[in-house]
């Protein structure tokens, strides 16, 4: 899952980035509203965490412009404005959720998790596909009841494919989803990651789950 954090407070932005990265998300972060909007325009994010009082472009203007372009990506507003009318204004401008500073980190992560799942129409935190079971909240994947030893990035990859099960996911989409803006687009990190994941998923006699559609991408399906 890929998240954009637009927060002008340096310490808070860094803390959020660290917490989200440790929780398995790919994070792009900026402290400027205009730069954040530029990031949002050019990349696919499952969630945007947005402060309201921002230099460059105000958070509400950011949100309104995003919605004016029929962009329905989930936005969690994070702000020091605590009055009810502020919340109403934020939600009416198109925010999906509203969290007032100061906040508990666990609450933020829970809301982020819920919003990201909603991005894929997933209400429950456990995704099941054939004998594969992925606990999105517990960040654990099992096959045939046996836990799989996955790195955070491998988990995000299988999670992404599982949430879009039955659909062909392009290499570019995986790259967008798993790697931040600093990744080299010409590298073969995606192929390498798929290869490693296949090995970990099908170590024994298990049927292969990840199939390659030549020239198009990858799909999670059973033969």
């Amino acid at each position, binding site marked *: 899952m890929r998240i954009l954090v637009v927060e002008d*407070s340096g310490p808070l932005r860094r803390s959020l980035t*660290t917490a989200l990265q440790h929780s398995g998300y790919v994070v792009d972060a900026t402290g400027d*509203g205009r730069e954040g909007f530029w990031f949002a325009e050019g990349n696919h994010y499952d969630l945007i965490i947005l402060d309201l009082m921002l230099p460059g472009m*105000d958070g509400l203007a950011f949100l309104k412009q995003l919605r004016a372009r029929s962009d329905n990506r989930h936005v969690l507003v994070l702000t020091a404005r605590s009055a009810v009318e502020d919340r109403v204004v934020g939600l009416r401008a198109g925010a999906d959720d509203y969290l007032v500073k*100061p906040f508990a980190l666990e609450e933020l992560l829970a809301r982020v998790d819920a919003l990201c799942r909603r991005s894929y129409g997933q209400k429950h935190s456990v995704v099941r596909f054939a004998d594969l079971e992925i606990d999105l909240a517990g960040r654990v994947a099992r096959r045939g009841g046996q836990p799989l030893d996955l790195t955070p990035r491998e988990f995000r990859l299988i999670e992404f494919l599982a949430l879009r099960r039955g659909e062909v996911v392009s290499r570019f989409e995986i790259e967008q989803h798993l790697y931040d803006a600093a990744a080299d687009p010409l590298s073969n990190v995606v192929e390498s990651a798929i290869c490693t994941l296949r090995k970990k998923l099908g170590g024994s006699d298990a049927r292969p789950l990840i199939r390659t559609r030549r020239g198009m991408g990858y799909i999670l399906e059973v033969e």
Partner: protein
Amino acid sequence: MTSIQRTLAWVLIAGFGTLLGAGGGLIYLLFREALIERFDAKLRVEALTIITYTVQERDGVDVDFTDRYIREFDDDVATQFFQVWHPKGRTIERSGSLKGKSLPKPETFGTLDKPVYWDLRLATGQRLRAIGLRFVPHADSNDRRRYDPNLNLELVVGALRGELDQTLASLRLGLLGAGSISVAGALILVRFALRKGLAPLRQVADQASAIDASTLGTRFPTDRLPVELVPICSRLNELLARLEASFEHERRFSADVAHELRTPIAELRSLSEVALKWPPRAVEATRNYEESLAIARRMESLVLALQTIARSETGGTLVFAEPIRLPGFLDRVWTGFASLADQRDLRVEWDMGEDLRVVADPILLEMVIANLFANAVEYTPAGGRVHVSCESGLRDEVTIAISNSTRDLTPADVPRLFERFWRKDASRTDSRHAGLGLALVRAVAQCLGARVSAGMPGPETLVLRLTGLRRPAEG
């Protein structure tokens, strides 16, 4: 507790009762006088009748009057009485109604022109009203030689007062009854009138008691009020407006303080939670500590600035004034900002004029000047211009003006510059500034007995002026 309605009711009822009593008493007395006068007139007529029948004759005085002429003197009816005495005391004639008994004499007898009237009581207990007079009986028309002009007979004529007293008692009862009914009616009327008359006051009281801190926007409508209440409600409305503004100011201030503290608290909390959940490496931990310290310092400076403003606004700041030579003083304060001004490539111009001196508290003045310098150096666009000048004005007042070029300020922003927590950019990116600098400058300037003002003489020039600083007395 006193009550206007109760006091007015008592005063009105007591006043009305007193007036009614006095009026009733007067009416009673007038009627009584009139009735007695009529009674006395009748007695006089009876006396004249008896005098008419009294004649001096050859063998003495003859009262040629029989009770049959006036039945009331008869012993059957016996409601009127008379007795005639000779000057030597013997009774010449008495009415049959006396049944041989005598009437009491008055202390002094009156004359025919001025008879005496008095009340008396018979041995039977009956109350009489009587007339007493002396008269000379006229001569016998057939024998005028016997006429003695000095023969003063004494006559008392009395009549029972029963009817008169009954009439007076009825009058008293009537007046008392009418008075009681009037007082009872007045009581009801007064209560009704007071209730109706004081209804607007009660409405105002009800409205006033419903006002609390959350409904200070309430105003008393004055268009339908009685004229007596209009000035009261107008003053109350003005008071409410002032209270509302004051509460709103405090509410906004509290909200601003809470808002200003939310972000640094969120920063500290998230730093701590992330560090506890995913312990950082040594380098990152050091950075966390540095950031935490910077946040704590920022919060400390915010609290100190708020304290200074509060103390200055409430007059709690001690001021120790002493002569200060401005050029040297400003130069010393500027040294703290010279480096940043150089880094930002600012062009700084000084116009000190004469060697001005002022009398002020050096610590407070430095606080004001340092904030003005900080404002100019940090908000002037890189490569811009800062101009510092001092001049002596009227009445020995000195003005320090600091102007700088600006890009984002507009004249509409100028009145808001001194508001607490106001910043042109609503974002808190520049965490060094809480938007309290100029609010602090204004509060501290007041402690110095000076004023601070702002203006934009040109589209991209901001001037902040500290005026009202006093020059030392000559000599």
